[in-house]
């Protein structure tokens, strides 16, 4: 993670780097977006620091999601966006978790908004958030196997909850009321088969 060539640190990033020290593995401010990379194990403690430090006051978790870098190791990058409603500044927090142990501490004890967003990340990427109070699928159904936003999930692979395919015959017309006798002129009733 380069980008350290930025001549001047933004005030936010300077304060974060000073407070967190070696916890920050890398950082950048590309396009004006202050970003830090940390170890996944530090996710909750760093977030608590960002929230509780008075000069930072990141009291709002705007977004929490993940990115699948299929060919890289560690594979999944958890991305959190923080905003301070008091100071009006932002920070992006990233951490990488490997595929064989995609675990990271949950932010739900700190931010209520993390609850559903972490459930969605779990639903779509299979990233497991420890200490999450209710880590279930949120958009897909419990019977769904796999994680569809992973790059190796075939996007056309459907998992129907029940197999039911009609042959195009209406019970009403054909079984209950079979057409007998005179052939009726019928317009526009062709049933696609």
């Amino acid at each position, binding site marked *: 993670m380069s980008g350290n060539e930025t001549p001047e640190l933004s005030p936010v990033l300077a304060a974060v780097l000073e407070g967190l020290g070696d916890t920050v593995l890398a950082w950048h401010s590309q396009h004006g977006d202050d970003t830090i990379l940390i170890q996944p194990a530090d996710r909750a403690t760093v977030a608590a620091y960002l929230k509780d430090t008075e000069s930072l006051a990141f009291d709002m978790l705007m977004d929490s999601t993940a990115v699948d870098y299929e060919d890289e190791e560690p594979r999944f990058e958890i991305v959190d966006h923080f905003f301070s409603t008091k100071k009006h500044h932002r920070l992006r927090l990233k951490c990488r978790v490997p595929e064989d142990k995609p675990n990271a501490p949950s932010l739900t004890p700190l931010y209520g908004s993390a609850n559903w967003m972490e459930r969605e990340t779990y639903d779509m990427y299979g990233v497991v958030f420890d200490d999450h109070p209710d880590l279930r699928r949120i958009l*897909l159904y419990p019977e769904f196997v796999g994680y569809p936003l992973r790059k190796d999930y*075939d996007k056309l692979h459907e998992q129907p909850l*029940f197999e039911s395919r009609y042959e195009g015959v209406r019970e009403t017309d054909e079984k209950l009321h079979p057409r007998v006798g005179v052939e009726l002129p019928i317009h526009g009733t062709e049933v696609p088969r």
Partner: protein
Amino acid sequence: MAVDPDKVVQLGDARNGNIVPANYGGDDIIEKAGLENNVWATRMDAVLGWARKFSLFQYPFVTACCGMEFMAVSGSHYDTDRFGAALPRFSPRQADMLMVVGTIVHKQAPVLRTVYDQMCEPKWVVAFGACAVSGGFYQNYTSVPGADKIIPVDVYIPGCPPRPETVLDALVKLQEKIQASRHIAF
């Protein structure tokens, strides 16, 4: 008694659902009784079909943006009430016509199936819009490619979203289908 050819009405006309004067083949009992042009003969099926096609109580299963178009058709500008399909019923038990309006996802498929099963016969299904017809531009792990994978569909309305005129055309076509169906089981 001579048969007046002008008064002969083919029985087939009545069978085809047309309402015809009841003086078949010059058997002018009705005429003798002074009931000419007061009594009319038809099929019971045709009467039931006529009644049913003009009292379509709909169950709007609205899941996506097509719902706005559905509201436009229901509103006073286009007004499905003109065709007797005005009142949306929010219980499937009271509905005749299931309008599947919008995308159906696999998670939702059992719900739609249950709603359909809860409706009383006779019932008809309209697939409203590209998504309900075929899945539309959604082709992925979560979308059902057409409501007819779950329930039988009578009329398909194309369009993303359909024009209100298209919906009214589909409604008229459904009415034609209802009129031409058998309604009595012998």
